[in-house]
C-alpha cells in the first residue's frame, strides 16, 4: 500500500469527497498544494481508506491543508477510513481537533 501519493476528487450524493491514496510524506507536498485548490466546498470528506504510511512530515501537510480549508476558507471537513496506526498519529498531533472523524460508508 505504500506507493506514491495520489488523490481523486468525487461526489457522493451532494457531498464532495477527496479520496487519498498511497504514502503521505514530504514527497506528497506538491499534490497537497494542488488538491486544496480543486476543492470547492462548502463541506468536504477526506477519505483515508487507501492511505498507507503517514509520517511526521505527512502530518504537517495534513494539518496545513486542514488549517487552510477550515480556517481560511471556512469549509466543514470530516475524515473517514483512517487505519489504526494513522488514527493514533492523528489523535497525538491534533488532526481530529480540526476535522471530526465519521464512519466509513459501507457498500450496499
Amino acid at each position, binding site marked *: 500500500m*505504500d506507493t506514491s501519493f495520489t488523490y481523486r476528487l468525487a461526489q457522493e450524493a451532494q457531498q464532495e469527497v477527496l479520496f487519498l491514496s498511497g504514502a503521505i*510524506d*514530504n*514527497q506528497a*507536498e506538491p499534490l497537497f498544494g494542488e488538491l486544496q485548490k480543486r476543492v470547492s466546498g462548502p463541506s468536504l470528506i477526506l477519505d483515508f481508506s487507501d492511505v498507507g*504510511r*503517514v*509520517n*511526521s*512530515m505527512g*502530518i*504537517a*501537510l495534513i*494539518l*496545513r491543508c*486542514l*488549517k487552510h480549508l477550515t480556517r481560511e476558507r471556512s469549509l466543514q471537513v470530516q475524515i473517514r477510513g483512517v*487505519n*489504526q*496506526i494513522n488514527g*493514533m*498519529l492523528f489523535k*497525538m*498531533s*491534533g*488532526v481530529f*481537533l*480540526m476535522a471530526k472523524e465519521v464512519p466509513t460508508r459501507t457498500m450496499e
Partner: protein
Amino acid sequence: MMSTTLNEAATMIFIGPSIDVTPGLDGLFPDSTDTVVRQVCCSADKPALIEEIVALIGEKDPAHTLLAQKAALMVDEMLENALYAAPRAADGSALYPQREPRSLLPDEQITVRYRYDGTHLFLEVRDSWGSLSQSKVFSYLAINTQETEPDPDRTGRGLFFMWRLFDHLYVRIYPGRETVVGGSLLLQPVRG
C-alpha cells in the same frame, strides 16, 4: 561535520519502564547473533530497509500488521532525522532540504541495527553528527504534548511519535560525534 572531542561525555536519555533493563545500551538493545546491521549510503536506501523490516515481521494477523506499521513509521522517522535533521552547518542550520535525495558524505555514517525475536522488535539508528542535544529532546517532547492548537510547523514531531509509540526510547548523544536513537516495540494483541 562538527569538530569533536572524542572523550566528551555522552548524554544518555532513557524513557520507559525501567524493569528488566540493565544500564547502558546493552540492556536496551540486547546483543545477539540475530541482530541485523545495515549501513545506509543514501536516502534512496530507506524504502528497501523499511520493506525488509516489514517483511521480517510479516502481516499475518492484525497484531503483526500493527507492529509492522509501527516499525515502518519508526524507521522512517529515525532515518529522516539521521539524513536531514542531523547534518548541521556550524551556525546550526540544516545542510540538506528534506525533499531532495542525498548521498552520505565520505566521512559520514548512518548505521541501522534491528532484531526481531517474534515478540520484541529492537530498532536503532546511529548517525555520525551528534548534533542533537538533551534540551532539544525534552523541548520537542514538551511542545508536541501540548497539542491543544495544532501547529503544522511544529518541530520535533517525529521524535514525539517515537516517544509515544516505542515501549522504550533511548537517545545517546556524543556532542559533535554521534547520536544514537533506539527503542523497542512489543507485539501486542489488537482489540477488535
